[in-house]
């Protein structure tokens, strides 16, 4: 920008030409600027071996990161278990964040060294679920992940770390194997660092979908911050402790985001990775790991304590999508999209301008041929309290259809 200014000041051309050149320089500067703002962070998913279903999980992780609009994503798939690993050398330094979906054979020495250099010099890492089982012997890796489990880890790996029932952070050096979990179940995730950029703005507690609740993790846990924990209920074969679920670790200049949730196995529907809280924290955690900041905006619909919020397309909904999906509502099917719309209307806090916007969309849906009567009846209910005069003509039309006349009259009576 400084150079462009110098050019303009020193130019001695005729006014017309000068103006032309000014415009060209201004346009060039603009495009460079907007290019900078649109440049996405580069993410690399490392996968290829796992005691979980990596064939499905790495595809899901790629979708989730791409759906945030903050990343371009490449994948590095290692040779299969037992095969020659000597050529496995991803170019870590070319990326802003490396997402680990790998546990299996040891990496070649050079690859390990390159990874250490990458992280030490400011590279970002996301440790996803069973990737914290990997490499129990690789000292630097275990420092990076903070806590790990299984594969022979025990008191020599470091202390158990957890919160007790009095909100005290415990470092427990007692003997014992690292890593366990009870049967899959839904559990509440509770924030411990609500101001951290990765989780800022999220509710303090939300219900996570059915998943494995990793417990008894052990590790050096140096420069580690626990962002969120979950109570591992003894009724679900849990430890009775508040186990770490989301963590950040600083290693050299590098930043690591460690998420223990998101199990992907042989189930038909991968509900754990569809969980809105998993998706949101993965997207934001990856950006934080890459840059130290989170610029992504929070979506309008957030995970909540009322029910485990699932996103089957690994993407948050726009208001248009909610209305479109709500159109096909029938009794017996999920009311989810209508409930999400009602949530958004509630969040408007009675602001007439915002409510008018929702009213317009509701009226548009009430007039469309491909919306079911059940959908229209639900929306009439909503309209009955937050609607206005402009709804009356559309509601009068609905009186003509015996399937919608009751709810249309309901709304008309309230609005008059």
């Amino acid at each position: 920008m400084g150079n462009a200014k110098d050019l303009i000041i020193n130019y001695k051309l005729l006014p017309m030409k000068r103006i032309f050149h000014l415009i060209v320089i201004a346009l060039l500067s603009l495009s460079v600027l907007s290019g900078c703002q649109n440049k996405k962070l580069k993410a690399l998913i490392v996968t290829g071996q796992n005691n979980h279903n990596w064939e499905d999980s790495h595809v899901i992780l790629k979708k989730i990161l791409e759906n945030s609009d903050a990343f371009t994503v490449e994948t590095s798939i290692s040779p299969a278990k037992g095969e020659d690993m000597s050529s496995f050398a991803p170019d870590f330094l070319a990326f802003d964040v490396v997402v680990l979906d790998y546990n299996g054979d040891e990496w070649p020495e050079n690859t390990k060294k390159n990874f250490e250099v990458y992280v030490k010099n400011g590279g970002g890492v996301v440790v996803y679920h069973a990737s914290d089982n990997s490499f129990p012997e690789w000292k630097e890796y275990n420092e990076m992940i903070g806590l790990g489990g299984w594969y022979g880890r025990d008191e020599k790996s470091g202390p158990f770390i957890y919160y007790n029932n009095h909100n005290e952070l415990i470092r427990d050096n007692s003997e014992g194997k690292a890593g366990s979990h009870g049967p899959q179940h839904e559990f509440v995730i509770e924030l411990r660092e609500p101001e951290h950029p990765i989780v800022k703005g999220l509710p303090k507690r939300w219900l996570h979908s059915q998943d494995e609740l990793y417990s008894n993790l052990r590790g050096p846990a140096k420069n580690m911050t626990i962002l969120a924990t979950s109570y591992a209920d003894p009724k679900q074969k849990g430890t009775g402790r508040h186990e770490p679920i989301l963590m950040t670790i600083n290693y050299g200049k590098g930043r690591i985001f460690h998420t223990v949730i998101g199990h992907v196995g042989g189930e038909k529907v991968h509900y754990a990775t569809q969980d809105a809280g998993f998706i949101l924290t993965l997207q934001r955690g990856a950006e934080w790991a890459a840059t130290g900041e989170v610029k992504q905006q929070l979506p309008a619909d957030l995970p909540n304590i009322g029910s485990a919020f699932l996103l089957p397309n690994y993407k948050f909904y726009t208001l248009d999508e909610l209305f479109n999906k709500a159109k096909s509502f029938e009794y017996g099917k999920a009311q989810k999209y209508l409930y999400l719309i009602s949530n958004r209307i509630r969040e408007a806090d009675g602001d007439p301008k915002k409510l008018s916007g929702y009213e317009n969309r509701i009226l548009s849906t009430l007039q469309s041929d491909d919306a079911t009567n059940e959908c229209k009846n639900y929306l009439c209910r909503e309209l009955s309290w937050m609607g206005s005069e402009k709804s009356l003509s559309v509601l009068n039309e609905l009186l003509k259809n015996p399937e919608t006349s009751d709810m249309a009259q309901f709304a008309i009576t309230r609005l008059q």
Partner: protein
Amino acid sequence: MLHFHWRWIQDYSGGQLTDWAGHHIDIAHWGLGFDQAAPISIEGKGVYPTEGIYNVPVEYVMEAEYENGLKMTIANARYFKDKRKHGLWPKIGAVRYGMGPVWYGEKGWIQVNRSGLWASNPELLKIPEKDLKIKIYHSTDHWQNFLDCIKTREKTIAPAEVAHNSISVALIGEIAMLTGEKLKWDSKNELFTNSEYANRLLSRPFRAPWEMPKI
């Protein structure tokens, strides 16, 4: 489903809030001498599930203000636990014993629920009844009380008008959570004075030919 779980559906009930508010607000009012007193303003926020069919708030907090300046906070128990944890419930003690009203005064606090009676200073609970400044209505059996009052023509311990006043706080709170506004309440005329949205939610239009009978 039929006997119990209907109450988690907004068409039929306000959920846990209206389930219990009738009881706890009733006692809270009784302790304050508020049998006829109602809030002048109320606001609240709730968390509503979005999956499944249940759609009443699973967590909620509301603040009601009364004419004499008293503020009543009604919330699910977790709300107070969290406030205490984050140091946002200073000076005025903490809710330790599950559900129930907690009255805060100059000398401390008292809490009561179906499990017991507690106070910040146990001495507060030892004042003999004859030394209290107010007369307590005695009834240990609602059914007997009802039958007795038929004979004596006295008011029962919990007359219908008082019950109406108690549950109304929860119902206007429920409306405040739905519209998201801070509502001003005119209890004499049973109308909100600052929100057309909220007024619409005060009743449900009957489907013809049903109508509210005029008494």
